[in-house]
């Protein structure tokens, strides 16, 4: 702990010394959700010479960083190019840190080994290039847990234990479909639902097996197992919401349970906000076991801190990124909505969650469990798996009546394979339509 604190002061000192030494401010790009970080940072370092720029966080498929970097690599990097960036897309770091971009700083030389080792196991996977460079720092975990409204659950299911399997969740959904129509056990209406149903069930549709090689197997029983379970439950369009969880017509007070990332707790259920659930309502339970029995879960979002290789003061930029990703002044409740991935910050983060969620000890334990169970077989790739789900499956699953989930696996896999080929990957698959293209 002492070592962390010492490092922390050194970081803050380095940043302000760098700021004083040169008149050029450190340029930091953040998204709107990270404005709280800016405020927390400026409160901790009121004299820091930093220019904060708000951009879209390189949101799903918009490729703001890719487009700017590609142009700057042709025309030269301007003086107002960002030094440090917050990025909401997990696949960006490896793409921007390797050819043809090669634009990110290898943090191995600028961030102490002890700090890098402090990140949760596997959490820097999206930051590690095939050649072993660390090109980003993970901000927070976005592992999926099972969010439960214990009040509603008790009302409908009495003293029965909260489900620990997908089958259990879907069976509870069936009970609600007839007896309590309108109440929900999950969501099928968003472009990122495959992150829970497929990723969380170890369905191998996004498994990078080597540089430029990907394996896509929609015929795996891990994929068909969950798909058939969903189809035979008949929950889609009933207790599995076809309305997006971000739509204005979505009512979080109807959610009995829902698999979703840690940050759903505040963002989707809008705990304490108008139209949301009252403070202390939702409790996180461990993610359901995969249909193959494995303890696995998916993830959605969470952020990365990237440092530009073209930053004029690389040391100060790296120190800043380290501060943002590891300092308890930033990685605390009220600033960061997800669980810090820097392990030394986790305990104080969890203990200060306090009354935001119901049953703090269960919620804390479940968050930790989920963060360690994210399946690593769903690799960071330079295309959006969510966008492909959105353009192939979403319309069919939200139709009335919905198409079967199982029938979406092949078109989705074909869409992923096409994106992979567009990105120059070689696709391996036992399904010929996926391997050879449709």
């Amino acid at each position, binding site marked *: 702990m002492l070592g962390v604190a010492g490092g922390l002061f050194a970081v803050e000192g380095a940043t302000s010394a760098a700021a004083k030494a040169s008149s050029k401010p450190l340029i930091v790009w953040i998204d709107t959700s990270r404005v709280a970080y800016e405020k927390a940072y400026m409160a901790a370092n009121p004299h820091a010479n930093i220019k904060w720029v708000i951009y879209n966080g390189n*949101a799903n498929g918009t490729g703001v960083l*890719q487009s700017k970097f590609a142009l700057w690599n042709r025309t030269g990097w301007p003086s107002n190019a960002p030094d440090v960036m917050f990025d909401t897309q997990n696949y960006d770091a490896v793409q921007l840190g390797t050819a043809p971009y090669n634009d990110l700083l290898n943090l191995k030389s600028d961030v102490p080994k002890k700090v890098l080792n402090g990140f949760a196991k596997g959490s820097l996977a999206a930051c590690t290039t095939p050649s072993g460079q660390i090109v980003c720092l993970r901000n927070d975990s976005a592992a999926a847990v099972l969010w439960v409204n214990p009040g509603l659950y008790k009302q409908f299911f009495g003293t029965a234990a909260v489900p620990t399997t997908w089958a259990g969740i879907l069976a509870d959904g069936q009970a609600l479909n007839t007896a309590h129509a309108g109440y929900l056990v999950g969501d099928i209406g968003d*472009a990122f639902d495959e992150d829970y149903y497929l990723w969380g069930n170890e369905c191998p549709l996004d498994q990078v097996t080597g540089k430029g090689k990907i394996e896509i197997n929609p015929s795996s029983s891990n994929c068909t197992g969950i798909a058939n379970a969903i189809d035979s439950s008949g929950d889609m369009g009933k207790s599995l919401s076809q*309305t997006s969880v971000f739509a204005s017509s979505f009512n979080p007070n109807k959610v009995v349970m829902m698999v979703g990332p840690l940050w759903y707790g505040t963002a989707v259920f809008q705990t304490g906000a108008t139209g949301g659930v009252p403070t202390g309502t939702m409790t996180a339970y461990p993610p359901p076991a995969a249909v193959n029995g494995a303890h696995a879960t998916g993830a959605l979002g969470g952020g990365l801190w990237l440092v530009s290789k073209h930053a004029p003061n690389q040391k100060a930029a790296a120190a800043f990124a380290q501060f943002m990703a590891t300092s308890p002044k930033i990685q605390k409740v009220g600033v960061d909505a997800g669980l810090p991935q820097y392990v030394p910050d986790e305990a104080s983060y969890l203990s200060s969650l306090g009354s935001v969620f119901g049953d703090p000890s269960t919620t804390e334990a479940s968050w930790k469990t989920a963060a360690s169970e994210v399946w690593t077989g769903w690799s960071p790739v330079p295309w959006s798996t*969510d*966008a492909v789900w*959105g353009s192939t499956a979403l*319309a069919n699953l*939200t139709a009335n009546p919905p198409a079967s989930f199982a029938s979406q696996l092949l078109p989705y896999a074909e869409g992923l394979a096409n994106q992979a080929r*567009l990105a120059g990957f070689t696709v391996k698959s036992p399904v010929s339509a996926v391997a050879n293209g449709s």
Partner: protein
Amino acid sequence: MTNPSATVVPDERVSARRGRRAAGRRNDGPAGGSRTAGYFFVALYVVLLLALGIAPTVYAIALALSAPGGLGFAHFVNTFNLFEFAPAFEHIFEFEGIWLASQTIFVVILALIVHTLTRRVSTAFRFVFYLPGAMAGAASVVVWLFMFDPNTSPWAFILHAFHYQLLANTAAPGNLPVLFAIMAFFTGAGGWIVIMYGALNNIPQELIEAAEIDGSGAIQTALKIKLPLIRKWIVYMLVLSFAAGSQLFVEPQILGVATVGEVSPQWSPNQLAYNLAFQYDRFNDAAAISVDLLVIGLLVAVLLVWRGKLFEVE
């Protein structure tokens, strides 16, 4: 590309020719001072055209043709073999088919109807028709997003009639060409109605009166007299609209972001080019697709100009 002055109605052209003939060779242009001013203004335009029109086109062609061993069609072959290539072109051809057909029919019919109304009433109608066109590009897409979302649309009952409960239902992949055609129609139709009305106003009143004296009814006059006389304007509208439509980008891009990816980021050829250039750093392949679009636009323009006898002087 198209010179609108070449499409004046016959009567005007005849008088212009007569005027020119009368002027003779001694005085075949305006006075020296205004000629200099003319060159000056044209020069300004030529500079801009070279810098912002010709140079980027030449650059794109050069990028597209630069192959590993010198010049070649490697990037055209590359992109042609992409799985997204054929669907992207199918999408815009379907979109253009729906849009150009409906725009041509409605614009011509509405212009002909408006032309028969009294001046005061027709002015009001033309203004109303033009209004949606004032909101173009990204702004109109955002408004249409609300219109197409059954949860926010004032016309939700129409969407419900199609069993659409969610934006995801309205924006289903099969519907996209129709949605974009609707957006493009309301953005562009009003302006074209105003232009067609102007063309109809150029028809000499004597001609229409003569037709009426010969016993031609309103519909017959519209179809047999007015329509043939504005035919070139219709061709002109098709040429410009086709070129604009084949470059469809903003609408699918924004709808894709709004629905978190329900519209593929490679839905239209222009999007595919953008995606290749800025997601995968494949500028040469992107340039090849741009050149494909240029060639298609030129071919269609040449075909329409030739078949529509746009530049012909009878």
